[in-house]
C-alpha cells in the first residue's frame, strides 16, 4: 500500500512550518510521528497534497519545568516520556498511560503532540490531559494562543485548531505531592485502542477523597471529563455504594460507537468498570 503523491517539506522552525501551512492552504498537513496519518494515507483515507514534516524543528522537542507546570514539546515521543525521570516523578500517570499506547516501535515515533492534536477519540492522551487540567499552546500566522484541553475537542477529528495552526507544546500542572493516580485501559490486544479507558487523579485527606478528576477515553466522539462521577466520590471513603454511584454517573455521559470492540451497552458497562478500578487503584496509591 503506497500513499498518493504529495510534496514534502521539512521546515527548521515553527515560524517556517506555520508559514508553509498557511501558504499551502487546507491541502497541507503537519506530519508528527506519522503513526496515525501514514496508515490513513496508505489506505487513501487521507490524501494531503503537502506534508510538512515537523521532525526538523528542534524547538518542538523536550520536557521542561515552568513554575508548577511541566511543559512538553509537541514532538516529544512516547518513548521519551517513558524515559523521562521528570515525568516518572512529577506525573507518573503520564508514564502509566504512555506505556499502554500501541507497541514499542510505535512509541519510538509517536508523539504527544500528534496524539493530542489528531482529535481521534481512541487516543489515550486527550482524556488524560483533560483530567490533569493541561493547556495546549497553538501557534499560527497570527501568533500563539493557549487552549485548555477540556475546551479543545469538539467532535471526532474536529478540534479547536484553526487552519494554519499547529500545536507546539502541552503544559501540564504537576499534581500535588502524594496524589493518587491510575489509568485503566481495557483493550483487546497490545497495540489496540481502548474498548474503554478511565483516568483518575485524586487526593485523599483523613481517609476521605478531597479532590478528584476523572477522564474517559474512547466512549464518546470526544474524550470526556466525568464531572458528576468525580463529584460523587468527593468526601467519601470510596465505599461500594459510592463506587457504584460514580460508575453509573460516568456511564450516563458515555455514548460510544458500536464497533469491533463491542456493542454500545458492553462498552458503557466496561467503561464503568474502568472508572471503578481506576478510582480504587488511585485511592490505594494516595498518600
Amino acid at each position: 500500500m503506497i500513499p498518493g503523491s504529495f510534496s514534502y517539506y521539512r521546515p527548521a522552525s515553527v515560524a517556517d512550518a506555520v508559514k508553509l501551512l498557511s501558504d499551502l492552504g487546507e491541502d497541507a498537513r503537519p506530519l508528527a510521528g506519522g503513526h496515525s496519518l501514514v496508515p490513513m494515507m496508505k489506505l487513501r483515507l487521507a490524501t494531503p497534497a503537502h506534508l510538512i514534516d515537523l521532525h526538523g524543528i528542534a524547538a518542538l522537542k523536550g520536557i521542561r519545568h515552568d513554575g508548577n507546570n511541566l511543559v512538553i514539546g509537541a514532538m516529544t515521543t512516547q518513548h521519551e516520556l517513558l524515559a523521562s525521570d521528570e515525568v516518572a516523578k512529577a506525573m507518573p500517570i503520564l508514564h502509566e498511560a504512555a506505556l499502554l499506547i500501541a507497541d514499542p516501535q510505535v512509541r519510538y515515533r509517536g508523539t504527544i503532540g500528534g496524539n493530542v492534536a489528531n482529535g481521534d477519540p481512541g487516543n489515550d492522551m486527550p482524556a488524560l490531559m483533560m483530567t490533569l487540567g493541561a493547556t495546549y499552546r497553538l501557534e499560527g500566522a497570527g501568533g500563539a494562543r493557549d487552549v485548555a484541553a477540556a475546551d479543545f475537542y469538539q467532535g471526532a477529528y474536529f478540534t479547536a485548531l484553526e487552519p494554519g495552526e499547529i500545536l507546539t507544546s502541552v503544559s501540564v500542572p504537576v499534581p500535588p505531592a502524594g496524589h493518587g493516580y491510575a489509568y485503566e485501559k481495557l483493550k483487546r490486544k497490545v497495540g489496540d485502542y481502548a474498548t474503554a479507558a478511565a483516568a483518575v487523579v485524586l487526593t485523599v485527606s483523613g481517609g476521605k477523597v478531597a479532590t478528584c478528576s476523572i477522564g474517559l477515553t474512547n466512549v464518546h466522539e470526544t474524550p470526556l471529563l466525568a464531572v458528576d462521577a468525580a463529584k460523587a466520590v468527593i468526601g467519601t471513603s470510596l465505599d461500594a455504594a459510592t463506587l457504584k454511584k460514580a460508575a453509573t454517573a460516568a456511564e450516563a455521559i458515555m455514548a460510544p460507537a458500536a464497533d469491533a470492540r463491542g456493542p454500545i451497552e458492553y462498552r458503557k458497562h466496561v467503561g464503568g468498570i474502568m472508572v471503578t478500578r481506576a478510582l480504587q487503584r488511585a485511592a490505594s496509591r494516595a498518600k
Partner: protein
Amino acid sequence: MAKTHVTMKVNGAEVEGLVEPRTLLVHFIRENLGMTGTHIGCETTHCGACTVDIDGMSVKSCTMFAVQAQGSDITTIEGMANADGTLSALQEGFRMMHGLQCGFCTPGMIMRAHRLLKENASPSEQEIRMGISGNICRCTGYQNIVKAIQYASAKINGVEFREAAE
C-alpha cells in the same frame, strides 16, 4: 512527482537513491537497495516484520517515508552478522532455540530484539514479551522466540544460558 535525492548509511555503508516523497522506507530498502531481508507483512504498522533500527530506535519501516530517513544511520537484518561473517548472538539464539517456524517474522523479531538488548542487556521474560509486543508471529507462538532472546542475552553477558524449567 519530482524525485528527491536521499543519502543515508545502511549497515555501515553510505547509500543513495532517488525517491518520490511517498516512497516508504521499506520499499527503498527492498527495491532500491536490493536488501530483501526486511519484510513487508501487514502494511498497517501492526506486525513488525518491517522493523529496522534507525538512529538507536526500532522503527516499522512501512510507516516512515524514505525522505524522512535522509542522513540516518540504519541497520537491517543484513547488517546483523558479526564482522567475520559468523552469526551474532541473537541470530545464533534464534537458530539454537528454533525461534521461528516459517521465518517470515524473524528479521523484524531480531531487529527489535537487537534494540531491546541494547537498552536492557538482561531483560526479564516479562520485559522480553513486552519488548517484542509490536512483532507478530502468525504460525507458532512466542515461547521459542523468547528463549532465543534469553539465549542471546546470556551470551552477551557471558553467562551460561539455562532454560527455565517447563
